[in-house]
């Protein structure tokens, strides 16, 4: 199960908290980690009746930006001897994640849940849906508010 993992990130430092756990979990086992960022489908930008930027161009730009970000994260894992690949997908987060899992050999999806309660955060919703829907194992690290005394 731990030979192949899918790790979902969204660029925030809080979501990156899963990376340290992955490092610990995978360090000894020659695992392979796939980093995934899911973004909304870009729409064509219009100025009046003229398209100013096409969806595909925007998607390409976003993809490059996300891949650059993931490269930085990948380096941290590679330093620990873990094989890493990176991917950007567009669409509804839970669908994209499940698709990515299906397309790969990944048996675990891992993410950090900021958990502000009430599912307002996209990562919270993703974690919730994966926990209840995903056919593969889900690893959730918490990055969440606690109750104050």
């Amino acid at each position: 199960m731990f030979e192949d993992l899918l790790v979902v990130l969204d660029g925030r430092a809080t979501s990156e908290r899963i990376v340290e756990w992955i490092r610990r979990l995978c360090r000894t086992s020659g695992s392979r980690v796939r980093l995934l960022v899911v973004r909304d489908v870009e729409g064509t930008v219009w100025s009046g009746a003229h398209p100013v930027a096409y969806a595909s161009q925007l998607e390409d730009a976003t993809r490059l930006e996300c891949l650059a970000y993931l490269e930085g994260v990948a380096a941290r894992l590679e330093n620990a001897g873990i094989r890493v690949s990176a991917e950007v997908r567009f669409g509804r987060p839970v669908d994209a994640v499940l698709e990515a899992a299906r397309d790969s050999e990944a048996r675990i999806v891992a993410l950090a849940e900021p958990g502000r309660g009430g599912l307002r955060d996209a990562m919270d919703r993703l974690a919730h849906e994966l926990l209840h829907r995903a056919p593969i194992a889900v690893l959730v690290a918490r990055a969440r508010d606690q109750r104050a005394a």
Partner: protein
Amino acid sequence: MRVADCSLAVPPVLLPAASVSAAGQLLALHDATHAVVVEGERLVGIVSRRAIMAAHPSSATSLTRGEIHGRLDQITVGDIMLPDPLVVSPATPLAEAVRLLRDARASVLVVSDREGVVGLITANDLLRALDQLVEPRESASAGTWRSTSEAGRVPATGASGLDRIEHR
């Protein structure tokens, strides 16, 4: 190493409705730089001495001193607090806390367990941890190193076994 390995002070607690003036006094009383803001059992924010100072108007203000104090009594902690602070638990690996403070560029992390807030971590707390981790003396012997005013190589005079040291 975990967050719990750092000794942390329990921060003073304020309600969102507390006035900025009261907050300033509370912080001064506790000699603290930050206080946590709670609503019932929920942690809702952090208020810092810096935010309190920044709420004061400039020297160019058209308000009188009396008016300034009056206003500051009206402005609440809820108006100036940082909402949604980053939270870690005492069991969180220290490296994670370091990374959060450094990369998320927060000034403070709240340390909380299931019972509630147990402390705050600031960058200075982490520097103190670093102080403990680094060897107190160089492993090189106490040879004298001559510095130069420009980058260059300086030969060692101590018996450390190192040939050269390079300046940046």
